[in-house]
């Protein structure tokens, strides 16, 4: 079991390497030099100064050499300095150790994605099970409609609608930011409640697409499993329906879902750009958007790499989950 996990872990390294190479090459293919954004703003810059700047960032070297230089720094977790006016190190912008854990960008994005994963798990799986065990019932039909709408719903639009309803019309929830103006003056429980209120809409929005997908696949997977012979056997030996469904069928049906959750991590992380932008959440997605708009190459490459690491981490967690659910793999 340990060897299996170790093997999976070491398989991640070439993948991570490949991801950074692909991202690096694609960004290099874009027209213009990364330093353009530094020089364009400055009309007084001389060609010599421009050349010096290019040399400083290694832009006079061939592309593969540049990638090598970049990679050498990244293994030491040094993503370089941001091109923005503050010139701070990229890592410090993403993970600012001077701030409380909950206000660090990477933590915010990770936390919201984690919460929405948990939400997907505890809501979608029971829905999928019930609609499979009561196939063609009214509940099944209603959830099918919900699922189809969920698949087709542009999440950013749904976010706008919820903002209008709960933020403006009913005035129940804040529509922007991750804490209130008076946050510092609140008591501890007040602060927790304030964060919770700011989290409700973003977490729900980021989970929404996944809710539809996972409940659909759970239903399909469950329907397939309950037609198997071993389920008939379990029923025939007189087990209660609860035991048949939750002990015999669920475990096998969960296997597909675990793989699916692992695969959905890149989508969740990519989606964070959208909801962080809409709700003004100061996370990694918002930073990425700002970086992209200002052509901040070191920042963009840094976040792409960290996003890929998070994805691979998600895949590894899915593998572990798979192992817990499937004794056949544990035995290996």
């Amino acid at each position, binding site marked *: 079991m340990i060897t299996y996990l170790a093997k999976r872990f070491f398989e991640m390294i*070439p*993948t991570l390497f*490949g*991801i950074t190479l*692909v*991202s690096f090459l*694609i*960004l290099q293919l*874009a*027209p*213009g030099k990364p330093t353009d954004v530094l020089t364009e703003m400055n009309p007084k810059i001389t060609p010599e100064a421009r050349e010096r700047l290019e040399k400083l960032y290694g832009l006079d070297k061939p592309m593969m050499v540049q990638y090598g230089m970049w990679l050498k720094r990244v293994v030491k977790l040094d993503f370089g300095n941001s091109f923005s006016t503050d010139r701070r190190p990229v890592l410090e912008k993403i993970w600012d150790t001077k701030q409380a854990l909950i206000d660090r960008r990477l933590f915010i994005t990770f936390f919201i994605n984690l919460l929405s994963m948990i939400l997907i798990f505890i809501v979608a799986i029971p829905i999928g099970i019930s609609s499979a065990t009561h196939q063609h019932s009214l509940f099944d039909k209603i959830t099918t409609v919900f699922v*189809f*709408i969920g*698949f*087709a*719903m*542009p*999440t*950013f*639009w*749904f976010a*706008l*609608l919820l*903002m*209008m309803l709960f933020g*403006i019309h009913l005035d129940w929830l804040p529509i922007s930011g991750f804490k209130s103006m008076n946050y510092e003056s609140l008591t501890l429980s007040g602060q927790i409640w304030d964060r919770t209120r700011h989290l409700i809409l973003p977490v729900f929005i980021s989970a929404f697409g996944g809710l539809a997908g996972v409940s659909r696949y759970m239903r399909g997977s469950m329907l397939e499993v309950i037609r198997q012979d071993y389920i008939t056997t379990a029923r025939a030996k007189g087990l209660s329906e609860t035991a048949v469904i939750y002990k015999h069928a669920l475990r096998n049906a969960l296997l597909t879902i675990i793989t699916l959750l692992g*695969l959905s991590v*890149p*989508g969740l*992380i*990519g*989606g964070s*750009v*959208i909801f962080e*932008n*809409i709700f003004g959440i100061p996370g990694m997605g918002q930073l*990425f*958007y700002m970086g*992209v*708009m200002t*052509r901040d190459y070191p920042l*963009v490459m840094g*976040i*792409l790499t960290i*996003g*890929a690491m998070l*994805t*691979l981490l998600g*895949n590894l967690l899915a593998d572990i989950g798979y192992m817990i659910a499937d004794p056949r793999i544990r035995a290996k």
Partner: protein
Amino acid sequence: MNDYSLKKLFWTRFKRNRLAITGGVVVFVLFFIASFANLVSPYDPNDIDRKHILEAPSVSHPLGTDDLGRDVLSRMIFGSRISLSVGFVAVGIATIIGMIVGAISGYYGGWTDRVIMRVIDIMLSIPTFFLILAVIAFIGPGIWNIMIVIGLTSWMGVARLVRAEFLSLKEREFVLAARALGASDMRIIFRHIMVNSMAPVFVSAVLGVASAILVESALSFLGIGIQPPVPSWGNILTLGKDNIEIAWWLSVFPGVAILITVLSYNLVGEGLQDALDPRLWGSGK
């Protein structure tokens, strides 16, 4: 079973699926509207009318006006052109790449296959939306760039499908027969195997149009997709966000349009999938 009866069987099955037919009709109507946008839209989509800024829906402006007094209905009608063309071109690019890559991988196997599958794994681990966002922002917005970038980042599913089909078809008798007759690899790949693996590719292309439309609208909403004054459903929603407290119609209608369009493509795709799945043919449903 000859070709005629297969087609007939497929059509009878598809026809019975009322939701899929409804979806198909909506898609057809949308095509009609997009093609004849200049005839069906009540106003010029770029006509600025400073006397009627941010007006709620009324008889003269059924879906209201935006912050420059432009008619929202007309802008949405012209916006449908963007959604449909981005959907089709992006999926066309993705499907062609996916078919070629999948065919090579499945047909030749061995090292070629292993390397290609590794590349696909890598592409699937990149948060694609991050990459699309970065590339578009760096090479500049513009409809062609969006189509190409969405196409280049969404071929992996098709490639996997085609590879699986090739793996199961390449050992079949008709392929062996073609090889025995001395047909070239190219001929076997395209004339013998590819034609027999088109059904699942077609289904995934229809579903792919739906997701490409969603990605385009999200990009335009974030301000790096289709640039105003060219109207797209996504960039009208940006105005909706900016005026969220005063103009609900800017936020509601374009979203409904995206929802209905994407839903229709999905329904058609699911209908095709069920109708093409031989496992469901005997069920009398």
